């Protein structure tokens, strides 16, 4: 297989460039994942840099742009990629090295939506009661692994990563807006009510298409907008 990989070493390079690697098919099996191939490529060139950790799609470290689509390398089967694979860092954020991006802005936007439950003081004898129906509202929102595949596929986030929360952060915002245990419902909605925040989303659904966990940030943002109209 052939891999065309975007390389960038800030200590040497002015800008990123492409490097082509060949990998002997004999080293791969039918169920190899892209991350397995990256590990083998690193054996060829130990300076090849990419993030990875859990290797099973739950830690969210290894988002990269694969043949033009943002994906997690550990859950992307090589068999679906063809004989030539082009790998680039997730687009729209600064590159640190090779396939590693600086996600500072992404995390900053996450933090800015106050993604934490605010609730009544703890009663050690009782948990909050929450019906299965109320709990079900969190499904599709709490599972986010913060890999950044969605936000870095979003043009609104590309243009204004310092202003627009982006799909991942808005998905997190929605998760707390719909949590029956949260007591800051209205405050949250007010803070999200800005043309540069929630309403900068145009629902082109790149986020939903990119999400490796099958979540739909676009739909979540739509629901967030509806809740704002209803509750504010």
């Amino acid at each position: 297989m052939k891999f065309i990989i975007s390389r960038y070493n800030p200590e040497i390079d002015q800008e990123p460039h492409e490097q082509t690697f060949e990998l002997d098919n004999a080293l791969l099996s039918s169920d190899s994942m892209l991350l397995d191939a990256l590990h083998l490529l690193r054996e060829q060139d130990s300076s090849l840099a990419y993030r990875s950790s859990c290797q099973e799609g739950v830690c969210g470290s290894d988002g990269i742009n694969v043949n033009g689509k943002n994906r997690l390398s550990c859950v992307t089967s090589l068999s679906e990629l063809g004989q030539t694979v082009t790998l680039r860092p997730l687009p729209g954020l600064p590159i640190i090295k090779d396939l590693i991006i600086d996600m500072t802005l992404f995390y900053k936007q996450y933090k800015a939506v106050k993604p934490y439950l605010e609730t009544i003081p703890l009663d050690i004898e009782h948990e909050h009661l929450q019906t299965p129906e109320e709990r079900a509202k969190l499904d599709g929102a709490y599972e986010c692994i913060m890999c950044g595949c969605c936000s870095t596929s979003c043009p609104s986030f590309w243009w204004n990563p310092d202003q627009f929360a982006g799909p991942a952060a808005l998905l997190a915002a929605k998760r707390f807006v719909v949590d029956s245990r949260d007591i800051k419902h209205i405050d949250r909605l007010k803070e999200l009510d800005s043309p540069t925040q929630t309403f900068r989303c145009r629902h082109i659904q790149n986020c939903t298409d990119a999400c490796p966990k099958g979540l739909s940030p676009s739909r979540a943002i739509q629901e967030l907008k509806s809740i704002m109209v209803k509750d504010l």
Partner: protein
Amino acid sequence: MTFTEYFPIETFDALVIGAGGAGMRSALQLTEDGHKIAMISKVFPTRSHTVAAQGGVNAALGNVTPDKWEWHMYDTIKGSDFLGDQDAIEFMCREASEIVRELEHFGVPFSRLDNGKIYQRAFGGQSQNYGEEQAHRTCAAADRTGHAILHSLYQQNLRLGTTFYDEFYAVDLLKNQDEEINGVLVMNIHNGEYKILQSPHILLATGGAGQVFRNNTNASINTGDGLGMVLRAGYPLQDMEFWQFHPTGVSGKGMLISEAVRGEGGKLRNALGEAFMEKYAPRVKDLASRDVVARAIAIEVNEGRGCGPDKDYVLLDISHIPNEIITERLPGIREISQTFLGIDPVKEPIHVYPTCHYMMGGIPTNIEGQVVSPDQDGNQQPIKGLYAIGECACVSVHGANRLGGNSLLDIVVFGRKTARTIHETLQKEPPQTELKLNLTPVVNRLNRWLKKAEEGSTDTVTQIKKDLQLVMERGCGVFRDEPTMQKALVELDAIQARLEKVCISDFSNVFNLERLSAYELENLITIGYATVVSALARTESRGAHSRVDYTERDDDNWLKHTLYFQDNHKLTFKPVNLSPKHHAMVKPKPRVY
């Protein structure tokens, strides 16, 4: 260039190394108590391996079946094959209900029962009334409980404004002139710069070291960095012979298939279609303790009843479980099975085989979370300023075998407890950090990796790591005996010799992952030694340590913890604590399920 003994210094009231559930829970407490702390993590916090925990966290809430912390304590002691310290287990089980409700208040999206309470599922080794009916004690957020807990703890830390040093690697502990632990040298992975973080209180929460085995459920970051640091500082590791092999890893690959699958009714079957756990644990069958199930699978495969062309795995069948239960309670398992096996478990059984999952041993601590080491008279003394929690620590609440659902409990209980210990100490003695630190050993270590390879040498850090993993898997797997372990020890010596020679080829500073894996490899090899040396010494079978040549548990000689020191691979021992404070001692007895 070489490193000299000068690095920029920052000082803190306390340092937390590792941003998994344990580190994050203690950082939360310390920040809340108003201390200036730094949370150091080699990955962004939510990438820590707690995120991969699936099944749940144990607490005797009694939401589904009647329950008491005493029963939970009994099950845990029995599960530990009586090697767990009973005072620590008692403490953990007593704290459990409160700490789970606290987690719920932090925002953990637990699954719910119809009455609105937290959903609890059945897990292996859980019983009501000291060994009778199956209990439902594991509080679950679908099959993503670790993810839910880790993210909620991170979120609460964001709320309080904890200081994070993300993508910083802790290289080594630093001692001052008085030989006290007083700081840590860290490397910023982003630019390769080193700095000293100085503090009188250093809390290790660096997680496990499953990467020492080839087939494991662990993240690639689980390289036992805290353990290596402690060994190099001259302190021991405890019970390193006890590694939990999770019965149900994806065969050949190792991804975890949660015990929750069996908790929800999944059945293990061999090539003949037999639900074989009936033979090994007639009463509780598939919900026996993990060591028992792992051994049963290994025996089935060894005796030729494995499945597939190579007869090297068994089947985990959930096709009889209603679809909506799978969708609601086991969605992550379905996803993993589809991604890595191309199998939809609703229709076809999952291919599973035991895989290295959890390190019961670790850095010896007391209930307060202080690291302890024997003095000249053999008495366990706390090491001033050093603490350990979570998988890297050995309190010991898991003894020779951990029960499913107890590790998420362990991390939050002792995470909070140890933060309180540090808080109390800080209130009594304000931090003093003016003492000079001894940097010579760590500078030598850094400079060692600046050497260039000799002409013609082709060995690499990656290759040595692969070989180490293979040696450990063959030499110290589910079943062990003297000759294979002796062979492994010889092979480890060869690997150690290669480590001393090998050089890296990348000398850049930004995200130099080869240098990082070299540091990690040093830790892994020390852990390999600790494991094999401890396992060779323990001439009995207990919990996860199953010896073919010593098949019985030997309480007369071995009801004690192993302590391994790096210096000359020395071993000493310490007694198991059999004196809980609020409950009668649970007497060791034969362990049947």
